[in-house]
């Protein structure tokens, strides 16, 4: 390799490094204190639990040999979370008045106390003014790693993208520009690089399971949109009961006043979860609301009459299921004109509730033949599992 080539390569490398240094991302100033607090909590002698704010706040963290104290200032008073090492002979905890993160906890005048991971935790502040408030506040508690990831993203991304890929792109474009592809002829280095790359890829197991998701954190604000998303997230992680509560909360926050397309879908969701919980009257009420709103959706190129007919059929089937009307459901299930098999599931469900197990199995089989192609209801994932369980047990 000639000296000039080496010089140009070195120059390109320096240029690429300079670009990366110049554009390296930084945390916005309003979030710096929270980031510093999280960094400080890494040194805590007990696993740190925190609440992540949605809005920027001047968070504080104090760590000592016994534990940590995390303070989140709010206009109506500070939210404080403390974690302390348990002594060898801990005092017995009083009568449990609520459950936090799956363990019994005690509430007393603005403070929730519980024990986990060999530590004693307290959460105090206006959020814990009552038992119910305290329970709500503790649902937003998460571990430090998850909090860091929720608030500041995946830690590897910045060094990988700005420390590796961006310089590589700059360097490569420089190579293209300089047309320096004539340097090496019979180098064995590329072959060695192939071996390294193959070994690196071989090291990653495709079967490795994803990190188990923590329960989604409840929204901090009373926003119907966020509460609906939270409800769907709870459904996603299999928390049907909590999801129903969140759907009801969304309704109380005014979701039925949304534009027709959104409120029709929301009320259909609500009808589904109410029906699954056995609240047939509530399900019928939600279906009626959804039907009214569905009729108000203006047709567009991407919402045409066949779409309206399809979604109306789903509502009709939910209402028939709420009435326990198997004849109507059977008719819907046999009607092949609309691309949905959800009526077959609902037929199976109604029959199962009525104790007609063989009829339920027959309907569930028809349902399983058609999903996932023609399963459109929100709870399709749960419905499939249930139908498969019943059929398997038959």
């Amino acid at each position: 390799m000639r000296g000039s080539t080496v010089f140009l390569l070195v120059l390109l490398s320096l240029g690429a490094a300079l670009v990366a240094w110049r554009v390296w991302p930084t945390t916005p100033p309003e979030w710096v204190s929270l980031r510093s607090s999280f960094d400080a909590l890494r040194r805590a002698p007990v696993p740190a639990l925190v609440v992540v704010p949605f809005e920027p706040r001047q968070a504080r963290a104090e760590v000592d040999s016994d534990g940590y104290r995390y303070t989140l200032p709010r206009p109506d008073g500070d939210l404080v979370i403390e974690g302390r090492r348990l002594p060898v002979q801990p005092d017995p905890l009083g009568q449990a008045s609520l459950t936090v993160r799956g363990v019994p906890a005690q509430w007393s005048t603005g403070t929730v106390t519980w024990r986990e991971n060999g530590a004693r935790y307290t959460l105090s502040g206006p959020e814990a003014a009552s038992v119910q408030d305290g329970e709500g506040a503790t649902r937003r508690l998460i571990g430090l790693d998850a909090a860091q990831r929720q608030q500041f993203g995946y830690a590897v991304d910045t060094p990988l993208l700005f420390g590796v890929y961006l310089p590589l792109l700059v360097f490569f474009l420089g190579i293209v520009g300089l047309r320096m592809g004539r340097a090496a002829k019979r180098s064995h280095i590329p072959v060695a690089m192939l071996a390294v790359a193959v070994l690196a890829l071989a090291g990653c197991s495709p079967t490795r399971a994803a990190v188990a998701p923590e329960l989604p954190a409840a929204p901090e604000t009373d926003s119907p949109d966020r509460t609906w998303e939270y409800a769907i997230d709870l459904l996603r992680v299999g928390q049907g009961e909590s999801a129903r509560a969140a759907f009801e909360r969304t309704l109380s926050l005014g979701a039925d006043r949304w534009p027709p397309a959104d409120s029709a879908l929301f009320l259909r969701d609500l009808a589904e979860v109410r029906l699954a919980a056995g609240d047939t009257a509530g399900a019928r009420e939600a279906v009626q609301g959804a039907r009214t709103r569905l009729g108000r959706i203006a047709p567009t190129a991407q919402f045409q009459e066949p779409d309206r007919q399809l979604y109306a059929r789903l509502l009709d089937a939910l209402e028939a299921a709420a009435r326990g009307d198997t004849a109507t459901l059977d008719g819907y299930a046999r009607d092949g004109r609309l691309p949905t098999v959800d009526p077959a599931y609902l037929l199976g469900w109604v029959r199962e509730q009525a104790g007609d197990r063989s009829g339920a199995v027959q309907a569930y089989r028809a349902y399983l033949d058609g999903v996932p192609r023609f399963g459109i209801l929100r709870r399709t994932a749960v419905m499939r599992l249930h139908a498969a369980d019943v059929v398997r047990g038959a």
Partner: protein
Amino acid sequence: MSDGAYCQRWHLPVAGGSRALASALAVGFLSLLVGLLFLKISPERIVDGTDSPQYDLLARNLAADRGFSFSAGPPFEPTTYREPLYPTLVAAVYRLSGASADAVGVVQVVLLAATSVLVVVLGARVVGLLPGVLGGLLFGATPEAAHYAGWLLTEVPFTLLLMASLLFAVEARQAGRGLDFLLAGVALGLGILTRAVAQSLVPFVAVGSALLVDGRRRWPAVARNAALVLAGTLLVVGPWVLRNVDTSGRPTITARFGTNLLRRAPRAAEPVAAYRDWIVASAWIMANPLSELLVPLRTFQWGPRPEDNLIWDFHVNESVRYVNRYDPVCRAAADWEGCATEIGVAFIRAYPVQYVAQAAFELVKVQFAPLPGFQALVHNATVWLAWIGALTLIVRRRLTRDQGLLLLVVGAYLASSVVLDTQVRYLVPVLPLYGLFAGWTVSRIGLWAAARAGVWPRVRGRVVSGAPSSKRQIRLLPPRERTPVAALPVRDRS
């Protein structure tokens, strides 16, 4: 005889020659001017209904050190939905410019000009300088590419990386140098991190360039060269794959497979009656804008809004309706991507014949511009001329190895687009290759007309052109097709 010697013999400059370089730079400069003009005319950079708002959000999160995340607010969960390189480039420009989307537009126009230069250089090596220049102009100096350079979309950077990869592949094929094979792989790897569809090109570029190498073919060398392309690609994409394994448990570049499948696969279950409209729409689009003169677009209008149209139903509306239908299901599933993939694959399994048959419609969608206008005229004429040129070369058995390599890449690209989901903008990255073959057709017609007018020499009934040497032509070329050197009207045989 090398291409260079061949072309010098014919007074047709090749890449590396001063005339080729000057031509390439001139085309690049023209592309720069057209691109800047479009930036001035069209102030929109982030356009609703396109992917650009997503790229903007990803870049803003990256610039604010929140990682590669789609969330507008906490939690900033890492995403695998998009490829990372383009948002990183945008984030870098944002960091330098104070989040100015216009600055990104300017950078993309510069990249567009650089791409045009590469297209001319590649064209001069593969189809001759004149077709190369025409190809560069058909890509870089027309409204379509300039249009995309002004929006926050991956088209221009991806095209640049793809052309760079092909240039290195052609150089590697001609000279058999290991470093060129490796660089072709690196460029492909960077391309994959910009648009994952480039994954499908890796085996074709690797095996194609290694197999078609000039000189005597030695299998160990073929294997080594193909492995070098693969190594270059794996070295680049490997870290991102590992990152995705850690965040999502899947060794993938992107998790968009399910979304794409969901847009297309449910169509396979549509009844036979629906095919009539699709055939009409396909025929109309293929003949666009000529069809506009015969059967105006408004004939297909069924509602008051512009998108209430049969052509738009075929192209966009149906796909959106399918996604709207299944999105609620997958939002509540444990894994959106897995849910969408499962639904799409279930349709393919249930209706395999329909799915394959509908690939014909996808071929139309990916290649032809659907709406009439000057842009469609240039685009669709380029596509038709390119296929005429390519088929002429194949039928007359004059396809060279380099040209074969480019056609292989186009074929692989089209096939992978057609298998999943297609939009006409997906053609943009290979449009320069269409431009080169279209340029070849236009130059042949031009030279033929010039020869008829007596201003260009004819040799034994054939027009002299910048076709590369017979030595590099694929073996299909029979010896009788080779023109004796002595018979050529050469001004300078040195």
